[in-house]
């Protein structure tokens, strides 16, 4: 009887200890370590570029990097930050800041103590990285989503290239002219954040979230999403994506010149200009009025709530987010800097029109505000979008279902 009690007590203790270990949040941290996505050598080179740039000011500066691929990052970051040896610094996309609310420490007090002027960073990015009224990460880039186009395909079709003004009607006419013989004028992925729906809506001033609340059924947003679906379902200027397609399916179509245009962020500028079969240019995302209006996305560096030395961690973040550092990384790696006066460094060696497009979109840019349940929205939309793009369901049906069902 006694041994049974001992076994029962031992088992209970073990369960409790394991659960506590899983949920535990405190322990030693390294203020000079950063957890981020490192999908490939290019990702690692980007993060190392921050360190190298910071070393120009402080030769002793160093940052230990660790992390999984981009796809795995959003799952593992929660469990990694719960470990005793978790890094203090972590990276977040602005669109994921709400979702990481429980692990990102508010930085306003630290910024005040360290004398960091947060107002020098892009307003839209700071707004997107603000959760419950507090800034959770310092942005290193501020990237307005743009329209990439294949100049060679436009020349072949005898079309004028788009630029700083691009109406939806002109875009559709161009896309139709570029579609045929097994090739398309446009390409779309099945995803929500990285798809064309949000940038096309933002260009008309319609957004999926306002004041922290999902407003997917707002008429303007529904209409713009339906217009994006109709590009495939009604006009046939792009191939219908499937729910199981990789998130970069549109990039593959564009680089192989099967698609003449795509909508995505400037963070792919170097990749697309160097790997596409044909010369690549960028233009503003088409809108009803044709006027440029950017949807600003980007990422920043935050501090884990479990960090035991946030002061040192914040000092390190400050070193890799100075105007000089973000400008230098923009120059060497192509990310659009989060500080306006550093954009000149990014612009070095780029065509004047491409620079003008990014500058115009930065000026008029609105942030991509999200909610804590964004990943649920993203996952569910990805499953349903193929039905929208095939005309099996309307944007109103899908967005209403999402608005009501996202838990």
């Amino acid at each position, binding site marked *: 009887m006694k041994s049974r009690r001992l076994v029962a007590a031992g*088992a209970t203790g*073990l*369960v409790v200890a*394991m*659960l*506590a270990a899983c*949920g*535990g*949040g405190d322990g030693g941290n390294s203020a000079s370590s950063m957890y981020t996505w490192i999908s490939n050598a290019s990702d690692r080179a980007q993060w190392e570029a921050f360190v190298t740039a910071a070393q120009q000011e402080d030769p002793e500066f160093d940052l230990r990097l660790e992390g999984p691929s981009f796809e795995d990052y*959003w*799952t593992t970051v*929660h*469990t990694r*930050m*719960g470990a005793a040896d978790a890094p203090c610094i972590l990276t977040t996309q602005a669109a994921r800041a709400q979702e990481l609310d*429980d*692990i990102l420490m508010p930085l306003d007090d630290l910024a005040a103590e360290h004398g960091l002027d947060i107002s020098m960073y892009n307003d839209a990015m700071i707004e997107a990285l603000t959760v419950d009224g507090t800034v959770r990460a310092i942005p290193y880039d501020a990237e307005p989503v743009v329209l990439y186009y294949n100049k060679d395909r436009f020349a072949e079709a005898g079309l004028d290239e788009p630029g700083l003004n691009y109406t939806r009607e002109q875009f559709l006419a161009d896309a139709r002219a570029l579609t045929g013989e097994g090739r398309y004028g446009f390409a779309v992925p*099945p995803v929500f954040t990285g798809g064309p729906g949000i940038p096309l809506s933002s260009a008309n001033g319609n957004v999926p979230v306002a004041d922290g609340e999902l407003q997917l059924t707002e008429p303007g947003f529904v209409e713009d999403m339906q217009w994006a679906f109709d590009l495939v379902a009604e006009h046939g200027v792009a*191939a*219908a994506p*499937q*729910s*199981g397609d990789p998130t970069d399916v549109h990039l593959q179509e564009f680089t192989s010149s099967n698609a003449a245009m795509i909508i995505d962020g400037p963070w792919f500028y170097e990749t697309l200009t160097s790997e596409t079969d044909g010369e690549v240019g960028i233009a503003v995302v088409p809108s009803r009025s044709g006027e440029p209006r950017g949807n600003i996305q980007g990422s920043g560096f935050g501090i884990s709530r479990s960090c035991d030395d946030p002061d040192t961690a914040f000092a390190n973040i400050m070193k890799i987010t100075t105007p000089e550092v973000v400008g230098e990384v923009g120059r060497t790696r192509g990310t659009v800097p989060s500080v306006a006066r550093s954009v000149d460094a990014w612009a070095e060696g780029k065509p004047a029109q491409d620079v003008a497009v990014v500058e115009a979109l930065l000026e008029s840019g609105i942030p991509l505000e999200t909610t804590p*349940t964004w*990943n*649920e929205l993203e*996952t569910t939309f*990805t*499953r*349903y979008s*193929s*039905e929208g793009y*095939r005309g*099996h*369901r309307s944007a109103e049906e899908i967005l209403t279902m999402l608005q009501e*069902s996202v*838990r």
Partner: protein
Amino acid sequence: MSAATTAPADRRATTSRRRPRSEGGLALRYLAPGMTGFVVFIVVPLLASLTISFFDWPLFGVGDFLGLENYREMLTDDPVFWRVLGNTVLFTVAFTALNLVLATALAVWLQRLGSWAPFFRILFFVPVVVPMVANALVWRLMLDDGGVVNSALGLVGIDGPSWLGEPALAMVSLVAMSIWQGIGYNIVVLSAGLNNISPIVLEAATVDGAIGWTRFARIVFPLLSPAIFFCTIMTVIGAFKVFTQPYMLTGGGPGDATNTLVLYLYNQGFSFHDLGYASALAWVLFVFVMLVTALQFAGQKRWVSYDS
């Protein structure tokens, strides 16, 4: 006299020194290594997931106690749960039935094939040992709108459908790929079962005039039924746990057409960070599979013959 009275006592003393205090203690010592692994890797995670299912448990931090709220919400407020449960049952029925019929037919065919039988047995078994992810990628290339299948259909003037874009066809594609991937295992088990049937019995049946379908239905099937029963149990359990195929091939779409219980569970736990709800789903799946398996065992008396 004194020697006679002390000798047994000495023997008892010697015996008690050599033997452990009790047989239970001895058994415990022998079982300890295996039981430790069983407790650490099976019992504790089971209890942990059961505990978590009563909480609103995020991936980071400690959760809030909810009692049975996760179960109540699942069963009464979550329409997606019933949809994915229906999908899982549909997949299980279609996959198990087709798998067993085809595996039995192929095993019988292989038994009569002669010297080529081992070659084909290995051929059918290759997909079983190839990682599911690789299989799924190959099938996606084949079933894509502009993939191998539709290109082949195009050569004969047929405009192929969207195998992964149409809800009904997506489930058919999922079942087809799963059968291709998993049928080799059942073929090997059923081939072994067929080889265990006494040739004398088959010869006697033939002499008595039982040939063709009659011989299979009246003689071979009853003698093969224990192997078929084993395959049924394993296939049903595996089918209820289907995850990689929809995860890689369709992502659960289009819509929720191929969203299965384990894929839904995975998304709740690791994409939406709701470990409490995911654990509750896991326990419902566990109980459901246990009940179905118990029903299968209860029903086996009617059709499984252990006579050799």
